[in-house]
């Protein structure tokens, strides 16, 4: 199968296959940085592009040393965390309510899927109109992006409980609560974690869209200012900082998933 290729390559070289993959990845990153550095120093228009060394310099001496920018970044972190927490809690509650009976599922799940498919970007001006220019509109917009994957994951998990398990539990006289605790809940858990991961991606998207849309304050103000002044080094540094924040949030969700996985397994066994 596919594994044969990797075993063949391992036998044919002194370095282990995993080490070669790791080295190739490092090499690509270094080569890309060197290429950008050369391009930025020799060929690029400094109004549009700056080499990585200048971007790091701008990161240290413009982004990190300007209290207004660091507080805007801190605010974004708070908004993402808050919106995500709201999305998970409300998503789980709404998902449980919709998935509770076959009838509510058939009635409301198609509506949820339809709402999920709508490009929510078109609602940004509405959110700003209702919640103002501050953190509230960004949290609300991140929440409205993040809540749907959680609902879909919970309802999906409740829908796919094998009928045999339900019948078995019922015939053994398990109470409704017991069925939920020992049959339905373990079935929700694996899909729920996938939903949590997707919800983080969507929440990040929502908060950042709203941050960029509102250009009079916060991160949107600085990206606009740097872009309009043709000052790309701090712009790239600011975008890089946000990318690092996004990666950190995704990493947290993934670590949480791995930490909670053994619990999930024991729940399935019990």
């Amino acid at each position: 199968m596919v594994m044969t290729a990797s075993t063949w390559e391992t036998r044919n070289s002194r370095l282990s296959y995993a080490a070669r993959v790791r080295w190739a990845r490092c090499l690509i990153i270094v080569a890309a940085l060197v290429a950008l550095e050369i391009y930025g120093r020799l060929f690029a228009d400094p109004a549009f592009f700056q080499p990585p060394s200048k971007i790091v310099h701008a990161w240290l001496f413009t982004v990190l040393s300007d209290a207004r920018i660091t507080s805007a970044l801190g605010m974004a972190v708070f908004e993402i965390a808050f919106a995500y927490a709201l999305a998970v809690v409300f998503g789980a509650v709404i998902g449980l309510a919709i998935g509770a009976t076959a009838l509510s599922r058939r009635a409301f799940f198609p509506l949820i899927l339809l709402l999920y498919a709508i490009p929510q970007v078109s609602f940004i001006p509405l959110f700003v109109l209702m919640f103002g220019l501050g953190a509230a509109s960004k949290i609300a917009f991140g929440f409205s992006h993040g809540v749907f994957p959680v609902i879909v994951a919970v309802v999906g998990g409740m829908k796919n409980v094998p009928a045999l398990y339900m019948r078995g539990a019922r015939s053994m006289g398990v109470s409704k609560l017991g069925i939920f605790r020992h049959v339905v809940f373990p079935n929700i858990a694996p899909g729920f974690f996938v939903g949590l991961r997707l919800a983080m991606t969507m929440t990040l998207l929502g908060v950042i869209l709203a941050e960029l849309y509102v250009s009079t304050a916060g991160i949107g103000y600085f990206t606009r200012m740097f872009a309009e002044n043709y000052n790309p080094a701090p712009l790239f540094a600011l975008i890089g900082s946000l990318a690092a924040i996004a990666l950190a949030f995704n990493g947290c969700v993934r670590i949480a998933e791995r930490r909670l996985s053994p619990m999930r397994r024991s729940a399935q066994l019990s």
Partner: protein
Amino acid sequence: MSRSTFSALVIQVGFLAILGGAWYWSTATGSVSKLFLPEPAAVWLAFSRLVVTGQFWSAVRVTLTTIAQAYAIALIVGIAAGYLVSRSRFLIDVLEPFIAGLFTIPITLFFPMFILFFGIGTGSKVAYGASYAFFPIALNAIAAFANVETHFLRAARAMGASRWGTFRHVLVPSALPVLLNGMRIGFFICFASVLGGETLSSIAGVGRNIAQAAELMDSARMYAWIAFVVLTAITLNLLIGGLERRASVRGGGAW
């Protein structure tokens, strides 16, 4: 079975009727500011006025052209890149985590860079939509082409199929379901990101018109535009869902 479908339908219609009624009632009694929520009649009036103007159709045309260009680029580059990477296990192991890792960062972050490089015309929206849609298309293309059963390939080779024949009759058909899944996700991402790009910063298009109506505090017109986008998205979703169901039924029959 059909009875529960019927009662589900009744609940759906009832739920939507209650929402519509709440909208009508809250605006009629004036308990909600008209700036946040204009009356249904005002939105309908704005919508019917909008549709007859040439401005409406030119905005729709700009947006559709942008989406088509962005999607075409994403499809060609995404599938080609996915296919090339999938040819070697080593390349997959080195590059796939990069692509998947980048895709966990919202590409929206880089939107100011697209504006800087390509200006506020349609070029930046094409580049932004294409870059965003590239990721799901390429990731699914890698998965699709890499996981073709080796038995099929070996059998084709044993029966003397040419390289092109193997590609055409074995590789593409068996990769198609996963490939199509990526193309569908990519399309909706492309649609949303072009609209988003237009809303954030542009000079023309549907997204620009939504943002402009909001800036002018013309709520009725903004709601009319949003309704248009929502209806378009729902129609596209039902259309593509229907096509997929038909394709899977036919595929099931063939097996």
